[in-house]
């Protein structure tokens, strides 16, 4: 690992400012993904700004009747929080479906959103990867792609976003709150927060240099049956082949996001409108533009089937 200097930031503003003044600086919170990337020199910051002391680690109600989740709330605490379990069960379930107890103890809300793909070629620094080194090529395309994206892909990248939490956040219409280096604040709907790979797969979110995520807010509870179904090869501690996060109302309408199939949690308004008509038409609309590989074509069928199981469960 490359050497770096380390500081603990004392306020959000100070952190943003420190990061803006040093293009080689990175924030560190839980560090569960960043450390592994640094060990491999996929990330090579010369300076780390530890933001664990910023105090943005509370879960509180919003004026609108929703909930604001501090960026540093640990995944363990978020999953266990009474309000989340009661009103946003989908989020709690998605969190518990991800990683392991030890990782959830460290991983933060913002860090979870910002984690990078688990594409094995991204992690093998001997192999070309546009996400790791822009313009070097994609070695996944034509390689081992069973886990990779089937929709929203580009000729430059077919990686997926690995988060379970983000799928729930997407289905629940979360909004990401940030502070920019100049101290200004903005709110980014999660729909716009993650980017598709396009020609610039190395740029994964709309965050600017030095911009700090301070919180994620959820709108007022929407009720309904909230289901997170993660499909994987082993019963625990594995990334999703496909996951479905859904809120289904008694009239059959609802909100649904899918994980494991794209560079970001996948949710399509026109597909959602098909929900009352069932899983097949919903899945067809979700995956209308899918470009699977030979190895991951099964995900098309798997999304349809998993969604079918989720809708059956919601009805039951």
């Amino acid at each position, binding site marked *: 690992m490359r050497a770096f200097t*380390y500081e603990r930031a004392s306020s959000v503003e100070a952190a943003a400012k420190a990061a803006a003044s040093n293009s080689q600086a990175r924030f560190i919170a839980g560090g569960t993904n960043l*450390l592994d990337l640094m060990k491999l020199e996929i990330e090579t910051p010369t300076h*780390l700004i530890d933001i664990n002391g910023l105090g943005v680690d509370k879960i509180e109600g919003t004026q609108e009747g929703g909930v604001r989740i501090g960026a540093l709330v640990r995944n363990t605490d978020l999953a266990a929080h009474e309000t989340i379990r009661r009103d946003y069960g989908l989020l709690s379930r998605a969190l518990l479906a991800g990683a392991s*107890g030890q*990782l959830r103890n*460290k991983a933060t809300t913002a860090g979870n959103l910002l984690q990078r793909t688990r594409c094995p070629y991204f992690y093998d620094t001997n192999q070309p990867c546009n996400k790791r080194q822009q313009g070097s090529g994609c070695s996944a395309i034509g390689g081992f792609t069973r886990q990779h994206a089937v929709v929203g892909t580009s000729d430059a990248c077919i990686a997926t976003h690995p988060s379970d939490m983000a799928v729930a956040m997407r289905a629940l219409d979360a909004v990401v709150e940030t502070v920019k280096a100049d101290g200004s604040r903005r709110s980014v709907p999660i729909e716009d927060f993650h980017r598709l790979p396009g020609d610039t797969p190395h740029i994964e979110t709309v965050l600017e240099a030095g911009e700090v995520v301070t919180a994620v807010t959820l709108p007022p509870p929407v009720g309904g049956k909230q289901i997170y179904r993660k499909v994987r090869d082993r019963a625990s501690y594995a990334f999703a082949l496909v996951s479905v996060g859904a809120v289904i109302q008694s009239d059959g309408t609802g909100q649904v996001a899918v994980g494991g199939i794209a560079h970001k949690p996948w949710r399509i308004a026109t597909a959602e409108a098909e929900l009352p008509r069932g899983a097949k038409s919903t899945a067809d609309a979700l995956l209308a533009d899918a470009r699977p590989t030979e190895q991951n074509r099964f995900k098309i069928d798997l999304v349809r089937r998993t969604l079918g199981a989720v809708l059956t469960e919601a009805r039951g």
Partner: protein
Amino acid sequence: MSKMHIKLTVNGKPVELLAEPRELLIHVLREELSITGPHIGCETTHCGACTIDMDGRSIKSCTVFAAQANGANVTTIEGLGTPDGLHVLQTMFKEHHGLQCGFCTPGMITRAYRLLQENPDPTEEEVRFGMSGNLCRCTGYQNIVKAILAAAAELNAVKEAAQ
């Protein structure tokens, strides 16, 4: 690169040392402090062999910089019990044969220790879920689960007797 002055409490004892910011907590524990119970199986958070208890929570010490642990209270397998005074979990792992090669065992027991603090009377399913970040390639897990459930029963019996 300059080193940082780091203060830790490790297994109840205050420790001060100098470390580069890039040094991982697991390396500092093992190489600087000769606390070699926590093992390195993968160094990428997948295997759980490096599990320790930090400020009352289970973490994987391969994925924490020692600099981040500055000021923390750390417990490793060495702090749970000694060969002459085993922790109940250690006794149960031994008696129920919850170990073979023993490499995953310190992480397994340290994780189980915190699991039972958080959930003193877990079901088998809760144990399996709670332990799912700790891999073992020898035992098939069954005896590990048995050992943890037996330790929970023993600890609860002691607690009841005390009340």
